[in-house]
């Protein structure tokens, strides 16, 4: 299956979501403890998970 997609979706959708999530993660732990900290941890762990996923699913085709 080709990795190339002719998707009509804007390439900026992912960066926009990541930026919003990062801001929520940064502010969450600042405004409270407990669940607010957990929200922050989950968001940043998910972002790092995206990098790991990109590497695991990398395209090795020549």
């Amino acid at each position: 299956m080709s990795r190339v997609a002719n998707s009509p979706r804007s390439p900026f959708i992912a960066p926009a979501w990541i930026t919003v999530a990062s801001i929520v993660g940064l502010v969450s732990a600042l405004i409270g403890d407990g669940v607010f900290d957990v929200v922050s941890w989950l968001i940043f762990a998910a972002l790092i998970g995206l990098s790991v996923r990109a590497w695991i699913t990398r395209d090795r085709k020549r």
Partner: protein
Amino acid sequence: MQRSTLKAWFLVHKWTSLVCTAFLLLLCLTGLPLVFWEEIGHLTGADPEVAPAAAGAQPQNLDDLVNQALARYPGDVPLFLGWDDHSPSVYVNTGARPDTPPPEMHTAILHQYTGEVLPAPQFNEGVMYFIYRLHTDVFVGLPGMLFLGAMALLFAVAIVSGVVLYGPFMRKLPFGTVRTGRSRRLAWLDLHNVLGIVTLGWAFVVGITGAINTLAKPLEQAWQTQQLGEFAKRYEGRSRPTQFASLDDAVAKARAAEPGMKPAFVSFPGTGYSGDHHYGVFMNGDTPLTERLYRPVLIDVETGEITARPQLPGYMTTLLLSQPLHFGDYGGMPLKILWALLDLLTIAVLVSGLYLWFKRGSTEARVTEIERAGLVADAGAAR
């Protein structure tokens, strides 16, 4: 996007990145251990282990604690006294004169309840302080801080221009594409894009708040001149007092005046934080947000009476809030670990950017590559 516009953004990204990359690498590498400064301090013995207070014990008189600290450094004057949030201890900074700068200060750490002077190295010595100075001012004071602030702003411009270029390059590729089977340059470029976008929001905020932190000294001076200057005018023509009213009583009055808050630190007259005639008792709250937002209570050192409880100006609040967002020390150990991992990913973005510059080819070829949405055959690239 027109080719000329794309080329302009490419050049902005290339040059802003190139200029700041070496300094950003320095900041990322030195920032990594600084995230764990407290933990490293405990492991290496730089931060003393403090026994808990005995049941029913009362804190020692603050004036006695200050006198104990002064006895260790004869000839010094008191500068600051502060409370440790995590243990029943206080630190007392002293120096040869009231405006002694931090690198020349002496510090004594004392048990708040027993008055015992705890064995601890000076905060302005050792490997971690060396790393801290490299990270904040490269040992040249304010010019170094402002220079690193300018590098942080260039980094922010590099991030924005990188996002602009990411759009056309990725318009026919799914998010997270990493192609390692073609050329080494293409693999590094895809990695640079993925990691750059994943760290986008975090790196932008940490960069901007870092730039704001480099303005700490000028902002503090502006605050001292403007707000504290108003109070200082009332004392014009009077010399700095040599006999001070009780610090313990002053702090008790500040506690009574701000019942929902606790004292974080006290500045002595002449240190620049409370004029020449006042103790500045800086109160804070106990939530992650309010513990960063100080409320100064100014107490006349001669009469021991409260003179004013000014609200910090907006720029000081911005500065204080930018500190946790830069240091990542407000969400427990998991956030510190994630902060360090994001720092490592940012190092990978910088290193991959450098690699791409070394393998750059012509600007026209790179702009064409972006125009063709990253699907162009990677001619010119060396494996």
